[in-house]
């Protein structure tokens, strides 16, 4: 009898310690998850393609008017899908993070901004059917209890910044990785347009042997690369650095360009059907030449109409970018080989960041650059 008591005591202790060590909260399903979508693609989110079992506790499901069921990895993907699909808000279901069953989202208690990481969002959102479960969760992981509407509102508001975060990760890491895996492991003649959603593509990749067996992470990388990039062309391979020879000198200041690859800029002219190229060691000199080529010597260039393209070097990525689409920051604390510079950026966000970081005085587009502005830089 005594031994039995000890055994019971030990098992209780064990369980207690197990539940105490729940500090590592996982979002994946602990048992077989409920999947409402049909076919082999039901294992993945229809918007982002992530594995539903792995992010089951933040999963949402919806029903369209035509009675198709769709399931998402998170409220973020639901919010994205609401823009494009007719979704009945009253039919939205969510996984109860404690019982792991699908419940009505409308009546659920959402915990917003707990210390547990969110799925595809900086702010995590977990739903509970009972208020006491939600309160227990808050006790351990903080956050606040709200209803479905305000949770959804929060998801929609943070959509832009969340997408930004995800895009940064995708372009810098996942697409290149997906591409190498695709080229090494998959059949190269996959017709992507055949598939209606990313989860269909993913299930085809896995089940129709389009790729050699891949791990979930690798499969996701391939699917994202194919779905979001290859479908619309490919990784821009031409977007390399500006190429200059060792002989090329800046027509304005006479310095060798190859010594300052970080600042290289080029104008391409077409004169008498022949391409002429002039390279500069900075946008400032390029602009001086652009406004008045005759001032810098007897060049064949006559009009701006002869220009075929203008390339500048993006400050952050060091890649060649089209000047007419670029953003320029003036008066920053970063100096080029010729002193004050117009510093080019491919996208506005980067330009804004640089503007703040390096105390720029002006952020303008190519058309807004004037000769006065350029000469002011030399003062």
């Amino acid at each position, binding site marked *: 009898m005594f031994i039995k008591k000890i055994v019971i005591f030990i098992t209780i202790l064990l369980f207690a310690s197990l539940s105490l060590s729940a500090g590592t909260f996982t979002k994946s399903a602990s048992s077989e998850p409920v999947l409402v979508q049909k076919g082999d693609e039901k294992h993945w989110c229809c918007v982002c393609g992530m594995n539903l079992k792995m992010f089951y506790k933040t999963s949402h499901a919806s029903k369209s008017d035509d009675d198709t069921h769709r399931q998402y990895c998170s409220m973020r993907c639901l919010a994205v899908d609401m823009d494009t699909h007719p979704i009945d808000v009253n039919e939205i279901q969510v996984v109860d993070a404690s019982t792991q069953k699908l419940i009505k989202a409308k009546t659920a208690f959402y915990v917003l901004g707990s210390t547990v*990481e969110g799925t595809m969002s900086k702010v995590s959102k977990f739903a509970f059917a009972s208020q006491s479960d939600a309160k227990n969760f808050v006790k351990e992981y903080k956050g606040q209890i709200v209803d479905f509407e305000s949770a959804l509102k929060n998801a929609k508001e943070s959509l832009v910044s969340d997408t*930004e*975060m995800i895009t*940064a*990760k995708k372009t*810098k*890491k996942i697409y*290149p*990785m997906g591409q*190498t*895996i695709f080229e*090494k492991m998959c059949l190269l003649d996959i017709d992507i347009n055949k598939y209606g959603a990313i989860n269909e593509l993913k299930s085809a990749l896995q089940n129709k042997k389009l790729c050699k067996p891949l791990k979930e992470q*690798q499969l996701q*990388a391939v699917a994202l690369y194919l779905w979001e990039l290859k479908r619309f062309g490919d990784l821009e391979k031409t977007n390399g650095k500006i190429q200059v020879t060792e002989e090329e000198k800046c027509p304005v200041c006479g310095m060798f360009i190859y010594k300052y690859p*970080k600042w290289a800029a080029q104008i391409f002219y077409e004169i008498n059907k022949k391409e002429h190229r002039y390279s500069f060691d900075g946008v400032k000199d390029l602009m001086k030449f652009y406004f008045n080529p005759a001032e810098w010597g007897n060049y064949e260039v006559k009009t701006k109409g002869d220009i075929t393209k203008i390339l500048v070097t993006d*400050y*952050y*990525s*060091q890649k060649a970018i089209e000047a007419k689409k670029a953003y320029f920051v003036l008066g920053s604390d*970063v100096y080029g080989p010729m002193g004050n510079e117009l510093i080019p950026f491919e996208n506005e*966000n*980067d330009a804004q*960041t*640089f503007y703040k*970081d*390096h105390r720029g005085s002006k952020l303008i587009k190519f058309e807004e650059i004037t000769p006065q502005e350029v000469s002011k830089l030399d003062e």
Partner: protein
Amino acid sequence: MKNKINVYLIEYAINAVLRQKYKSFFIVSVFMLLTFLLTSVFFITNSIKHELESTVDALPQIIVQKIKAGRHYDIDVSSVDGILEIAGVSDAVARVWGYYYFENAGVNFSLVGIEQYEKQYKNSFESIVEKFDLTHNEDDSFMVAGEGVYQTMQQNYYKEYFNFIKPDGTLKKVNLAGVFDSDTNLESNDMIVLSKETLREIFDIPESKATDIVVRVENPQEIQTVASKIKLMYPDTRIVTNQDLKVSYQNIFDYKSGIFLALFIVSLFTFFIIIYDKSSGLSNEEKREIGILKAVGWTVDDVLKEKFYESFIISFFAYTLGVGLALAYVYLFQAPLLRDVFVGYSQLKTRFELPFVFDFQTLFLVFLLSVPIYIAATIIPSWKVATLEADEVIR
């Protein structure tokens, strides 16, 4: 012709050198020893500096480490997402690596985990990924070992695989897929490259954790800004930029150079004592020789020329001999004894080749420090004697 080299004078000078066999031999050997010591020291330092610099250049631009209670701690892999968001960062890789102490041989291996499809943070890994398949399975794992590790394994009867002892005491058998050699041996000799999953199993590191994060910044001018942004984002981290690393490597190196500086000063001091002794006066015999030569009809000019040839022959011969010996000692025999003073910071006694770096400047410096000084030290006292009247000297 005044400037024409007088062959007879040279002949006389050679004969003079040969006549005073013991004295010449002594001077040549001391002189040679000095140049040998100096040049081999310079050769070794240059080679190691070259090796270090190429190692440092291959280092990642920013390393992010989590610090907890003042110690290095495993960092969350999810931090990579935040870092990637920073403008200017072109790539961030969560590294998994560590040291494995192999008790039988008493050495440490550095174990580095790489992911096959990721953009590698080191060029040498790119070729490893190309050449070897490092897939990780339940029962079949592969690794690629550095030359030094391979030798150690061979000596310990591990021909085709190696058993790693996991933290829980069980064994993890990893097959040897191949041996790699990198351009610089200093960093790769004690290295084993495996897949991240295998390494996670050996070190028991969970999927969500990594040893540190390396960050690639396309524009080197932005490294400081990015580093400070990461620090703001994750205050519990230590950010090490490649500039910091360069400085600390340099510090180790400079400390060791100090030992050489001491050696250098001592040998230089010895040399100058010899010079001083020589220039403070000629022996009676030498004075007599100059006197007789003058009596025979030699001009002061002739005497000085002869003395110049004599000292030049001795010093230049000794100098070339010393440099040649140093070249052979350092690059042919890989500088036994001397280089141990320098190479002492790696766990596995790194067996690396000193790369051949020919630095004309240092050779010239040693030349200037020795040959002209010696020549001057011979000519000046001779000139003092030669300007005197012949009978005065002989008497």
